[in-house]
């Protein structure tokens, strides 16, 4: 009996101990409550920023954070028109080769120092400097003297001058209608970083506690967890209406749970959860078409894929609407264009490739497709809709007599294979939007890797001609005509087959007012709800 008693008391103490500690911890309310008067906005984001240094990284997650703290020369408004930010105005000479920016006298850094032309000149210089990795060099290539500086044969960029503290003049080698979009990036303070060698910038303590001039100041950055911001009273755009902003990083499931629980005010929602979230009170679901298109890249450098009839046949063989209906539960659109924004550049004369296996078979036989050939579809993992669309694509192609082998691998692996030409088909998403010239990275013949992303080695002389004209011409009417023709050629040639465009889906608490989401994509605005973060307000 003694044995039994000993055991019983042991078991009892284990149970009581566990229960006690659980109750103790669960019973305590969460700490860190702030004064009720403070207006706090809490936003969820899928991935943490890679770095706080805009010269080192330019991915969508990092730039979302940059957008809060670092200023830009100008912003794009809801209709993609550039509007003042640091610069109150800018003049472009009639020949389209000289841009003069006039900085606002009210623009100051968080520490009270004025924003000057030296800040802008230094930032552009660092962006082109090999020592920083010259991440955005491509965008600056039209500036006079930029190549000499990049190669180290010149100590400064001759095309950038600062006649006085509030004026920046940029000279271009030739007109570039896309130039404003090209220099749309974050400005850093010269009074702090001016004396730092380019190669040492990355290690500078500045990027641990950046001094910005954006709408918010970075208060705390908990790696992999969250970033805390406070309203910047001195922001030239005006003080934001909320006092404090949190950006929480996490996976989709966790963010949705936090949103449902009220721990977050804004968070992305998966397509499959839209209906469930619509039933939750105190929340509204925003499901807006995005401009990010999932494209089936075709390697036209392979002789058997060089015939455009083959690529057209592939398009007809795919049940793209089926993909949108099943995988995205209707939260997306089938598209036939290679870019959806800006609106003026999108042609209304595009051919729609409906789901038509018979037509596909006919085109394939015309092109003399060898049905014993097996082609490789490389699919990067990580995006559910993209992964899920692979078997549907395979089934569609096999039903018209094209054998397909799916190779799944992580993103870096697929990227490497794609850029070295080791693929027949691959699926990658593209967020084109600010200017149609952005798309040249994928279709201009000079942009084959290593240079750009024309991974299928697509070459069409007329396309090259149109892209060159589109850059040199500043007349909007002229550009409209050029890009419509360009888009119609892509629609006919199908160097990439546009698959679908998933909606951007966000849940927003009813506490948040002033929400006016955008549909286009530019740097720093991955979350369309945060586009006008200054005007967002939180009611209790």
């Amino acid at each position, binding site marked *: 009996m003694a044995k039994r008693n000993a055991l019983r008391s042991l078991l009892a103490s*284990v149970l009581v101990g566990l229960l006690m500690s659980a109750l103790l911890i669960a019973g*305590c309310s*969460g700490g*860190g409550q702030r004064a009720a008067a403070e207006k706090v906005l809490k936003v969820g984001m899928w991935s943490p920023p890679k770095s706080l240094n805009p010269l080192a990284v330019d991915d969508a997650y990092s730039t979302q954070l940059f957008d809060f703290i670092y200023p830009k020369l100008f912003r794009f408004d809801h209709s993609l028109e550039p509007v003042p930010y640091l610069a109150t105005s800018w003049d472009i000479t009639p020949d389209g080769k000289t841009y003069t920016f006039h900085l606002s006298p009210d623009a100051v850094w968080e520490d009270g120092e004025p924003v000057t032309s030296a800040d802008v000149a230094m930032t552009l210089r660092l962006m082109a400097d090999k020592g920083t990795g010259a991440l955005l060099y491509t965008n600056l290539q039209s500036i006079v003297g930029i190549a000499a500086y990049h190669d180290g044969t010149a100590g400064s960029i001759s095309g950038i001058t600062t006649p006085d503290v509030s004026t920046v003049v940029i000279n271009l080698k030739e007109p570039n209608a896309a130039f404003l979009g090209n220099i749309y990036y974050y400005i850093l303070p010269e009074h702090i970083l001016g004396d730092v060698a380019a190669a040492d910038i990355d290690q500078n303590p500045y990027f641990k506690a950046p001094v910005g001039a954006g709408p918010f100041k970075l208060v705390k950055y908990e790696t992999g967890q969250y970033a805390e911001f406070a309203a910047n009273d001195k922001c030239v755009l005006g003080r934001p209406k909320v006092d404090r902003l949190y950006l929480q990083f*996490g*996976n989709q499931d*966790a963010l949705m749970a936090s949103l449902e629980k009220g721990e977050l005010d804004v968070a992305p929602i998966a397509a499959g959860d839209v209906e469930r979230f619509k039933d939750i009170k105190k929340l509204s679901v925003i499901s807006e078409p995005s401009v990010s298109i999932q494209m089936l890249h075709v390697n036209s450098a392979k002789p058997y894929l060089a015939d455009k009839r083959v690529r057209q046949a592939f398009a007809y063989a795919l049940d793209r609407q089926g993909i949108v209906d099943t995988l995205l539960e209707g939260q997306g659109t089938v598209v036939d264009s290679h870019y959806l924004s800006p609106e003026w550049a999108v042609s209304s004369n595009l051919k729609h490739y409906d789901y038509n296996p018979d037509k596909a078979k006919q085109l394939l036989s015309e092109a003399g497709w060898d049905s014993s050939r097996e082609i490789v579809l490389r699919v990067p993992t990580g995006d559910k809709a993209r992964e899920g669309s692979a078997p549907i694509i395979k089934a569609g192609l096999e039903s018209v007599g094209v054998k397909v082998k799916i190779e799944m691998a992580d993103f*870096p692996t697929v990227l490497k294979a794609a850029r070295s030409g080791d693929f027949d088909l691959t699926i990658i998403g593209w967020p084109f939007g600010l200017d149609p010239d952005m798309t040249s990275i994928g279709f201009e013949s000079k942009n084959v890797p290593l240079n750009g992303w024309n991974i299928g080695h697509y070459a069409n002389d007329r396309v090259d001609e149109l892209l060159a004209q589109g850059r040199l011409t500043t007349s909007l009417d002229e550009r409209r005509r050029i890009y419509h023709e360009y888009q119609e050629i892509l629609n006919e040639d199908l160097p990439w087959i546009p698959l679908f465009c998933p909606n951007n889906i966000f849940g927003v608490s009813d506490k948040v007012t002033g929400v006016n989401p955008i549909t286009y994509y530019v740097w720093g605005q991955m979350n369309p709800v945060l586009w006008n973060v200054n005007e967002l307000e939180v009611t209790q």
Partner: protein
Amino acid sequence: MLAYVGRRLLSSILLILGLTVVTFIILNAMPGDPAEMMISPLHMSQEAYQAKRELLGLDRPLPVRYVNWLSELSHGNLGYSYVDGRPVLERVGERLMPSLQLVLGALLVAILVSVPLGIIAAVRKNSRLDYTLTGFTLFCISIPSFFLGLLAIYVLALKLDILPVGGMYSLGGSGDILDRLRHLVMPVLVLGLMQTAVLTRYMRSSMLEVLNQDFIRTARAKGLRERLVLFKHALRNAIIPIITVVAVSVPQLFGGAVITEQIFQWPGIGSLTLEALAARDYPILMGINLLLALMVFVCNLAADLLYAAVDPRIRYD
């Protein structure tokens, strides 16, 4: 004893060095290119690509890069992250404490629960209680941690609303110890439960073996109280193999708590490994690898030394 530790240290250093060579080669043989991963497709150009490769030192031959890494290491520098340029020591270091909290918490729960349960199951061998415990451990081992984690979030955070969904602290509440504890509960329980199940099985069989030994019969024959027989004579001997199991699982949990860390947004070593892999951030991966190798060494050594401390029959000369 000291000589023993010295010998172990020497052989381990050679082993770990060899390991870094192998890891370095394997990492660099992985398909994928860090420079390519770091430039947004829309900004890709030959100039940017080559500048990035030069900046990261990727343009140099592999052996040169390894020797550089090694010589930096001898100065206590583990290199810099490809992605944000911060020192590897700092990047890995900031993940160490979160991982430590998680792993130690989980092991603590596991030991506190599994040792008594193992004893009970052994003493009441083949009873209904024993079968129930066996069933429980089987359940814990079989259930995938992602499922358990999501279930815990659904029940404890969403339905009962007594615990936060994830993360290490509430937004803005990072200084508060109670807030941290509340965030620690779910990940520790989920990670701990599987360890509990494993340890309970070990404890049960170890205890059974000891209980069948002659000295236990002698102790009982002497008329000692059952409590004394169980906890003094049997437990002390039965717990020795458990030390090894726990020591081995420390480094394993450090690198292997990936799923738990992902589900609960815990910024530990596991999630850093995933991030670094996705970016092909070799210096970070080398750093983590070195850390885990060191940890295996330290934990094994600690287990061996602890052996000697709890079991007078074991001596290292």
